[in-house]
């Protein structure tokens, strides 16, 4: 190894480099012969490629050069670059719905047009507007208006029919005309509009149309017994239509058409069985039993040796995919491929969630909230290619590069530079793919664990629960506070404070729920109110980070007792979040321990802990090199 001395003083210039899942951090320092350290600069950049692969070299070099520039030193004076031994951890995410609402025949319209017309409940036989003339007098009919009908013409046709004795009790429109038509009727009736597939409404069938007054939701069609009363259903049929009632709950308007062969099913999709092996046991748990049952089984199989999914099921496919990805990451050209069997899934986090899914058979793009389970799985292997990255960094920089220490230990080491922290100290590294905990006891013993699920799972939950379908928007919802644009000149923040602007806000954010990103307000494409989005965001963070913080700390705490910890330091990108540290601190408050966001070196906040820990470890033992002993 190189020990390029820097002049007569004998100080050595070293760079600690932490290659993480999403960011690569560097810490530049001078180490004096007596082991004292003076820090010169830090830098942070995006990790290039998958952590632990040769592609990391580019990002590592960028961070090193950045730190050198800030510290005002040249690359030629670097004695040693210290890299972290990354525990090869990758996490896979999958989400599977476990319920599905299917309407095999067109039996309901449950969408929420912004402006239905009239109000009340109308029950009658469906008749096309062109067939109104032949309707039997005294027989209640529901008029169905296809696309292309002008509101004046539709209203006139209905008025003529009513004048001729027809009893029109409600109307279903294709276009967005309900208020316009209702305003022109001699006898107003409930009207539901914006029914895209109006041609699929079966004619000659008994239908019920309900429109609630402004500010109210429907009462009859969202009630199973209301449906039973309207359609004179027996108990067996009532059981069959109860999913319809549930799907219509909360709407301001709805249509239910009773078709003889109509069949709505609400069934569980077999998701598969998760087989957990650990602690000398093999446990089997049905994924559709939900997150609580899965996590209970995971806790009983702790420490987990491996997890498998039943082949040919959703969960089987998901875990197989994580394994395959990991095998690819581990492959080195010119060496035998890593057998998939060598890759073990060491942790699983299951989270109950819901996915808004379009109801199959709906007529207006109805959406039902289906239950789902999200799984994060974490894989570890015995092989790492960090030595190869070190060799490449050495080549690229022209200085020695060695593996300076194991991530968990180094993170604790760096966290100790936070003012007010002492041993025993536990760190919680809130990352993108995994949540890591490490404990350094008073005696200097270090244990570390990695649990599955972190920032990326939060983003995924937000994305699917709000039906955003856009990872970037979901990331924004996760990272920035919300506000409601209340006029062209002011917004109300989620805490209720109001902020005014000199320049008018753009029309596309008017009256919208927005995230306040540094680039300005960005709309969240949802019909939900600010409170709903906020609650959902916080709940996603709680289900992942608070659950994982407690899970990980229990695994490192002496005797599994969180109370036995003294200092807990939060580190990592998600420790910069505007609410996650508070949520974890709240959850840890009952245990009587000190918990807060780290401030590495007194200046770096929760960043740079591993990189500075590497420098500290080097200073304490400057002749060490090569890979350190693996963490348990």
């Amino acid at each position, binding site marked *: 190894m190189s020990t390029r001395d820097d002049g007569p003083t004998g100080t050595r210039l070293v760079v600690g480099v932490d290659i993480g899942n999403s960011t690569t951090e560097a810490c530049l320092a001078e180490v004096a012969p007596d082991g004292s350290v003076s820090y010169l600069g830090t830098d942070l950049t995006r990790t290039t490629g998958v952590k632990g692969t040769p592609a990391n070299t580019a990002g590592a070099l960028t961070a090193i050069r950045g730190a050198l520039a800030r510290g005002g030193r040249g690359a030629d004076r670097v004695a040693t670059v210290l890299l972290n031994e990354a525990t090869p951890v990758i996490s896979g995410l999958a989400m599977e719905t476990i319920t599905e609402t299917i309407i095999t025949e067109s039996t309901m319209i449950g969408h929420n047009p912004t*402006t239905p017309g009239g109000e009340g409940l109308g029950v009658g036989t469906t008749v096309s507007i062109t067939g109104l003339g032949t309707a039997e007098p005294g027989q209640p009919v529901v008029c169905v208006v296809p696309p292309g009908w002008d509101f004046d013409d539709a209203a006139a046709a209905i008025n003529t029919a009513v004048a001729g004795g027809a009893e029109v009790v409600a109307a279903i429109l294709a276009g967005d005309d*309900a*208020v*316009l038509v209702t305003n022109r009727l001699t006898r107003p009736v409930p009207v539901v509009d914006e029914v895209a597939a109006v041609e699929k409404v079966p004619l000659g069938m008994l239908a019920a149309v309900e429109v609630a007054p402004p500010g109210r939701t429907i009462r009859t069609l969202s009630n199973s017994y209301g449906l039973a009363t309207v359609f004179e259903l027996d108990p067996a049929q009532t059981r069959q239509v109860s999913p319809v009632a549930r799907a219509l709950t909360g709407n301001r308007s709805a249509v239910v058409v009773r078709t003889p062969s109509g069949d709505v099913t609400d069934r569980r999709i077999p998701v598969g069985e998760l087989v957990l092996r650990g602690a000398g046991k093999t446990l089997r748990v049905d994924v559709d039993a939900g997150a609580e049952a899965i996590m209970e089984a995971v806790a009983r199989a702790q420490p987990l040796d491996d997890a498998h999914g039943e082949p040919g099921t959703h969960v089987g496919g998901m875990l197989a995919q994580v394994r395959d990805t990991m095998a690819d990451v581990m492959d080195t050209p010119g060496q035998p491929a890593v057998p998939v069997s060598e890759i073990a899934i060491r942790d699983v986090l299951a989270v109950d969630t819901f996915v808004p899914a379009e109801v199959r058979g709906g007529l207006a793009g109805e959406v039902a909230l289906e239950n789902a389970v999200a799984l994060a799985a974490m894989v570890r292997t015995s092989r790492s290619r960090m030595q190869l990255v070190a060799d490449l960094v050495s080549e690229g920089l022209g200085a020695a590069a060695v593996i300076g220490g194991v991530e968990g230990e180094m993170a604790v080491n760096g966290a100790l530079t936070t003012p007010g922290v002492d041993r025993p100290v536990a760190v919680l590294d809130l990352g993108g793919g995994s949540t890591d905990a490490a404990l350094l006891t008073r005696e200097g013993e270090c244990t570390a664990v990695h649990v599955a699920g972190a920032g990326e799972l939060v983003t995924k939950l937000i994305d699917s629960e709000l039906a955003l379908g856009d990872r970037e928007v979901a990331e924004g919802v996760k990272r920035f506070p919300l506000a409601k644009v209340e006029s*062209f000149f002011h917004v109300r923040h989620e805490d209720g404070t109001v902020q005014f602007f000199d320049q*008018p806000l753009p*029309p*596309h954010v*008017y009256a*919208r729920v927005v995230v306040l990103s540094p680039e300005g307000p960005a709309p969240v494409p949802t019909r939900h109110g600010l409170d709903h989005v906020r609650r959902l965001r916080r709940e996603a963070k709680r289900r992942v980070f608070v659950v994982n913080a407690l899970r990980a700390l229990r695994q490192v705490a002496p005797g599994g007792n969180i109370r036995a910890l003294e200092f807990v330091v939060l580190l990592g990108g998600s420790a910069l979040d505007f609410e996650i540290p508070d949520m974890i601190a709240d959850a840890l408050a009952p245990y009587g321990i000190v918990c807060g966001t780290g401030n590495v070196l007194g200046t770096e906040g929760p960043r740079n802990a591993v990189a500075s820990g590497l420098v500290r470890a080097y200073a304490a033992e400057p002749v060490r090199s090569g890979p350190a002993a693996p963490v348990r």
Partner: protein
Amino acid sequence: MSRTDEPPAVLVYRHPGAPPAVVREVCAGVEEEGVPAEVVDAPDGLTATGLAHAAAQASRLEVGIGVDAAGAAAVHHGKLPLDHPPATLGADAPAPDRRRIGRTGARVVKNLPLG
């Protein structure tokens, strides 16, 4: 002006030569949202945006819509500068877009997203 005597409404300023079909669709868009609209014959010489701006200044709801001789339309709000109309529409736009201009005007009043 004694605007407080008049019922609150979105004012639609119509150029004398404005196509009646355009005005009808614009008004239908406002009505469908449940907001009152009132058509006013405006003097010659203003663009759709200028008409909308003038209408917004006169409206008790601070929202105005302008329709020019060619059938181009614009929505304006009384507090916005003249060159910042929330929405504009070309003269050759299809009927649903004209309806949407009325809807946008009504939604500014109702403080609902314009999209």
